[in-house]
């Protein structure tokens, strides 16, 4: 009956929690789901037929090309790829233990060495970059073989102009021109309707490429989030000391006049920074209680989080115990799928770098994080001072170095584990910002899954307008392998996890709004206003939730008024029903409820798209529940 279990059930992330150590070569994807949703059963047969010979060709040694018959492309690992074996080997090594100095190897922070080569790095650190095979499930490779029967000889090499609608060498036979236009990328010949979704082959370049890592900065108001991030940007060399100069450090991120006037972050500040292993997108969230909805949009777009807590006497207590936002932020981040957290114990210089104070805070925060089902291995702590810059890139104060031997902030950021991306799932893009500039209508946002290239046609949901991506811009050019001739292609591709700006044509600025979803026209997420969901009621709830309770529904960047239209069942953490049709839901309980929104939006079952299946419920300024969508009604 412990409530920890309940949270676990709710926010379980299959890419971290259960698989934890197998995280890297875990190629478990729910392909079945994908198929059921998009491909009519009658059509899948011929694909299988085509698949078998092709994949045998691709993997001559592979004994069993189709372990599961109903899956159009077999999941068998082609034997050509020796990666799995290597990956397995490197896996058994534990990730770099927190606090072992040897791990925080030599790190050139600002500019990574030009010839920065992932494999060599793997050798030294042992974790960061598993061999080529990881991240692209073996299935993908056979999939490629399946969908490109004619070019099977060059299995791994798509035709030069692949992806252009007109290119369909294979898209011949009985396709009428209309299908050709709508089914942009497919090479498969047996489709009758534009509505049939055939996943695009993942281009080679993405198989080795790494995506950006989104990092949200959390913490109570005035904990020093923006100042610390400003310090990171200065010390990493993105902003010269002279530029930062006289202004407060936080102004680097707080660029609005009102923010500067009041000394409070009000909007997400987005910046990029590069550490050797990651291209990081910093999302500096506001800490003020009134801006939690904005913080939610940040956390929903984040892979990892830095929690900033102020160490000075009174301030920590106020932010952590006394109704501060620290706990709420932790809960929200966890509920929105953040599983790695780095706790920066800030302002420790004001406590004279006292180890005792550090340990005290660490113990308190850690126990709370563990309660919220953060895996112990994914929680790290470090002391620093955002204002003076101590322990951001280096340590100068002997008082701190006397007892602290762990990594600096930049090293610790480098040690985040890369997140697993779902490239072969249908493309989804959540718009976080829209504006018009000389170049046209620009939509900034994050690719939730799949990938997108310049030139593609996409549909804007929920309004349904079709747009063309004229241009794709990364916030900072992604790190690529210098030896790869095709590396430049990465620049015009946004892969799952990347925060990119899309220059769109075919739409007016006023038609686009923050919170809209972009997707492939023939693999749209369903639009709905009613859903069955699993929720976990937080312990900050004072007034119980009864049938008909009016709430705000937050998903990605959207906030929509909604009602809890039915209380279906009160459940235990494991999902067993305790009571059907309860009269009210009170704090710390899990339940299955039906939620009715005021407007139709794009959402999906948690199993088919994580980002569109997670939500937060708030009421009069308080977060009351986190949940995942079970079923659309």
């Amino acid at each position, binding site marked *: 009956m412990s409530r920890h279990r309940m949270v676990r059930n709710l926010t379980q992330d299959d890419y971290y929690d259960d698989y934890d150590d197998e995280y890297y070569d875990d190629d478990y994807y729910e392909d079945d789901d994908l198929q059921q949703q998009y491909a009519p059963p009658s059509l899948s047969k011929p694909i299988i037929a085509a698949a078998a010979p092709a994949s045998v060709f691709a993997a001559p040694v592979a004994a069993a090309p189709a372990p599961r018959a109903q899956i159009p492309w077999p999941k068998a690992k082609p034997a050509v790829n020796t990666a799995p074996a290597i990956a397995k080997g490197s896996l058994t090594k534990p990730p770099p233990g927190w606090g072992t100095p040897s791990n925080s190897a030599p790190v050139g922070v600002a500019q990574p060495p030009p010839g920065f080569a992932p494999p060599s790095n793997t050798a030294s650190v042992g974790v960061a970059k598993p061999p080529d095979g990881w991240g692209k499930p073996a299935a993908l490779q056979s999939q490629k073989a399946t969908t490109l029967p004619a070019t099977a000889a060059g299995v791994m090499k798509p035709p030069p102009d692949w992806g252009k609608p007109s290119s369909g060498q294979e898209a011949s036979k009985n396709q009428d021109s209309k299908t050709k236009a709508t089914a942009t990328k497919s090479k498969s010949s047996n489709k009758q309707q534009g509505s049939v979704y055939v996943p695009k082959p993942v281009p080679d370049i993405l198989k080795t490429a790494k995506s950006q890592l989104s990092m949200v900065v959390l913490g109570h108001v005035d904990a020093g989030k923006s100042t610390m991030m400003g310090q990171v940007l200065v010390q990493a060399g993105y902003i010269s000391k002279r530029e930062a100069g006289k202004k407060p450090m936080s102004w680097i991120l707080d660029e609005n006049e009102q923010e500067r006037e009041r000394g409070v972050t009000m909007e997400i500040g987005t910046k990029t920074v590069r550490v050797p292993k990651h291209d990081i997108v910093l999302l500096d969230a506001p800490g003020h209680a009134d801006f939690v909805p904005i913080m939610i949009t940040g956390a929903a777009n984040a892979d990892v989080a830095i929690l900033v807590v102020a160490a000075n006497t009174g301030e920590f207590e106020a932010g952590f115990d006394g109704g501060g936002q620290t706990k709420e932020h932790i809960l929200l981040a966890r509920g929105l799928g953040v599983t790695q957290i780095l706790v920066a114990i800030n302002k420790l210089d004001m406590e004279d770098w006292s180890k005792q104070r550090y340990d005290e805070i660490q113990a308190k925060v850690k126990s709370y994080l563990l309660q919220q089902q953060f895996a112990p291995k994914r929680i790290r702590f470090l002391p620093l001072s955002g204002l003076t810059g101590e322990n951001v890139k280096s340590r100068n104060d002997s008082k701190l170095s006397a007892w602290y031997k762990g990594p600096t902030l930049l090293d610790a950021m480098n040690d985040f584990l890369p997140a697993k991306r779902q490239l072969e799932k249908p493309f989804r893009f959540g718009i976080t910002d829209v504006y018009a500039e000389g170049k046209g209508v620009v939509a900034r946002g994050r690719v939730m899954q799949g990938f997108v290239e310049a030139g593609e046609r996409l549909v804007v949901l929920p309004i349904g307008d079709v747009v063309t991506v004229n241009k794709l811009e990364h916030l900072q050019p992604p790190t690529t392998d210098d030896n790869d001739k095709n590396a430049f292609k990465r620049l015009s591709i946004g892969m799952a996890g990347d925060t990119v700006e899309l220059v769109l044509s075919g739409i007016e600025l006023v038609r686009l709004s923050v919170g809209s979803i972009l997707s492939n026209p023939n693999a749209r997420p369903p639009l709905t206003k009613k859903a069955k969901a699993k929720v976990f009621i937080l312990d900050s709830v004072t007034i119980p939730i009864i049938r*008909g309770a009016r709430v705000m529904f937050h998903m990605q960047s959207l906030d929509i008024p909604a009602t809890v*239209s039915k209380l279906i069942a009160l459940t235990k953490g494991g999902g067993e029903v305790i009571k059907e049709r309860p009269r009210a839901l009170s704090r710390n309980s899990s339940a299955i409820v039906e939620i009715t929104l005021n407007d139709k939006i794009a959402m999906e079952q948690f199993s088919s798209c994580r980002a569109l299946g997670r939500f937060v419920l708030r009421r009069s300024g308080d977060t009351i529940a986190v949940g995942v969508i079970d079923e659309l009604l």
Partner: protein
Amino acid sequence: MKLVKRNISSKDGGGSITLRPDTPEDLWHAFNLLQKGDCVRCTTVRKVVKESSTGSTTSNKKRLMLTIEVKKVDFDPDVLEVRISGKVQSENDFVRLGAHHTLTLELNQNFSLEKECWDQIYLDVIEEACNPERQAEVAGVVLHSGLAHVCLVTGALTITKARIEVNIPKKRTGSSQNAKSIKKFFEAVYQAILRHIDFARVKVVLMGSPGFVKDDFFKYLQEEMVRRDDRPFIENKSKFVLCKASNGHKHALDEVFSDPAIMARMNDTKVAREVEALNKFMRMMEVDPDRAYYGFAHVSKAQEQLAVDTLLLTDQLFRSSNVKARKEYVTLVEEARAAGAKVFIFSSMHLSGQQLQQVSGVAAILRYPLPEIAEIGEEEEEEVADDASSDEEYDPLWRVKEDVADMGL
């Protein structure tokens, strides 16, 4: 509303009443009085077609006095109109008996209403509507960055006057777009307030937002009104009250009204009392769930044991086209009153009333805990709720059909 004539039999409660609505709110009260099967008589305009001996037709509009038997009633909150359709019941030189017609109740125009039985709820509505002490009108503005609602709140109505939505690009280095669009947003809200709020009638303008949006906006308003010399604002500056709301969606208005400081200022208004009663119920739900029940089945069980202390209902329940269902609720109210309970009938045009409607439309705070009631199933009451919500649905096709029938086609 003026009560012009009252002719109700003390024997069986049947009879007719003549009323004259003089504010839009009165139309809402009239809407609550109308029930399927009643007879309404008032003047109306109808197109009359005449056929001459040669077969050519001429049509002209005529103002007539018609009596119709109510078949369907609509209240349009946007234009504030009550439309009643049904079959003509009175003889007339121009209209056949039994022809379809749709009446529109107009301000300052008498109408008489005949019912088979005027029960206490109706009489209460008339009493409330005819109370000459006009309750204060309050304007509510809720906003957050990019979204605002300007609403007018009267005794029984919450009317959305304007909804403003502006896309505000995020801050970016070297771009002034953010500041520009915030200004654009503020300007739109400024104009909406100027246009929709009549300061002669509005006693106070409540402005709620999260964070500093309201302060920024108020600063903008003060600067602009001086610059443009907008008299209505300058003279009524003291009527603006800043308060807290968690967002700019319409239902955040409820939060504004439950703010204790605001509540004290608006002590006597119906909306404040309703919000307070509902909040009390919600708090009871937390403190002692055995003393707070909702749903007809549960509440009537509690009433059987004379346990109801405060009874909350929405007026929508009494508009139910199902006469039997309405009677059940009326009986519940009468019994509860007789037993000394406080009864609040919420207006479903208010947000608190809509919230209560979501919670099945009827709720009660009990005098003492009755844990055994919780065991009773809720089947029955769910049906009622569904019934009520389907009433609310507006079917445009039906409208067209009625209109066609009205024209005698």
